[in-house]
């Protein structure tokens, strides 16, 4: 089968599709570390915020696949954020992230994406 250059560019974009990940956490240094680790993967784009209003605002502006809930988020905030995200995007995957900037981050993201290879 023959492909023209535009087809190949299309395939490349499809294969290299970026996954946008929103991380919310109250600890600035952990937030910075988690975002750095997410962005070390070429197909993942991490955005980190510390407060709920900012999280909601940015969620409406970008097409996120996963929301990671980090440390320090109290139950009421968590419930309100989850309801907001689900209301705006019923397919959003919301994951409780444990362990800070750790070896679990990749597992949690891959599991949420349904891809554990």
């Amino acid at each position: 089968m023959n492909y023209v250059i535009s087809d190949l560019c299309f395939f490349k974009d499809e294969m290299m599709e970026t996954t946008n990940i929103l991380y919310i956490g109250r600890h600035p240094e952990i937030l910075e570390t988690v975002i750095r680790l997410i962005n070390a993967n070429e197909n993942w784009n991490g955005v980190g915020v510390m407060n709920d209003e900012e999280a909601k605002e940015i969620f409406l502006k970008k097409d996120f696949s996963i929301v990671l809930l980090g440390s320090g988020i109290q139950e009421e905030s968590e419930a309100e954020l989850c309801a907001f995200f689900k209301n705006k995007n019923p397919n959003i995957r919301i994951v409780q992230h444990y362990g800070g900037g750790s070896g679990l981050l990749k597992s949690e993201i891959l599991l949420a994406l349904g891809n554990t290879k």
Partner: protein
Amino acid sequence: MENTDKIIDGAITNSVLHKSNTRGHANHGWLESYHTFSFANYQNPERMNFGVLRVLNDDRVSQGMGFGKHPHDNMEIISIPLEGDLEHQDSMGNTTVIKEGDIQAMSAGTGIFHSEYNKNKDQLVKFLQIWIYPNKKNVTPRYDQITLDLNDRHNKLQQILSPNPEDEGVWIHQDAWFHIGKFDKDFSTSYELKKPGNGIYAFVLKGDFTIGNIALNERDGLGIWDTNTIKITANSANAEILLMEVPMQL
């Protein structure tokens, strides 16, 4: 990696066997690590956790090397040195050394930073890094370490961790109990689970054992659930085993 877990039928049901040579392996030069459960670049959907036991890393750190300052949150982190000395520093102001016979527990809670280095320039350090999901999120971070009496585990199970600050060993924010036993050949004992619904994960530190009808060798792991008691027999001299009783649900 091919999944080689075996569900055992027979005298023990509801169990999972992780042979030592089926664990994930990473060699970073300064750090050689065997992962019982998925961790970092080792991803195996069949090996994610055993109840709230999420990480069981069997680490060897080169002389003078170690884990630089890095953060954790919302995890109960237990370190058990098997050989050598680890130098610990953390954001709570602790600077300590843990050695064989000690156990260290950290509740990461709302967030901590720490580093762990091999203190010695002439000796490898070997230690177990164990992570347990907490039963309470966003707790105030805390650090604890104790020195255990190694004689207290000869032909008996020595409790080294519990959920209770007043009980033997260190404590964590989870309904988990850890014990270590060092047995003579053919010595047998039983372990009664402390809490209904909990499971137990046995990890062989040295030698050979039989639990129920299942033979275990060094660094094999066996998880058992839906049981109240297990029978353990040492099949070699100075055989050493770590038992981790943990809730099966987060």
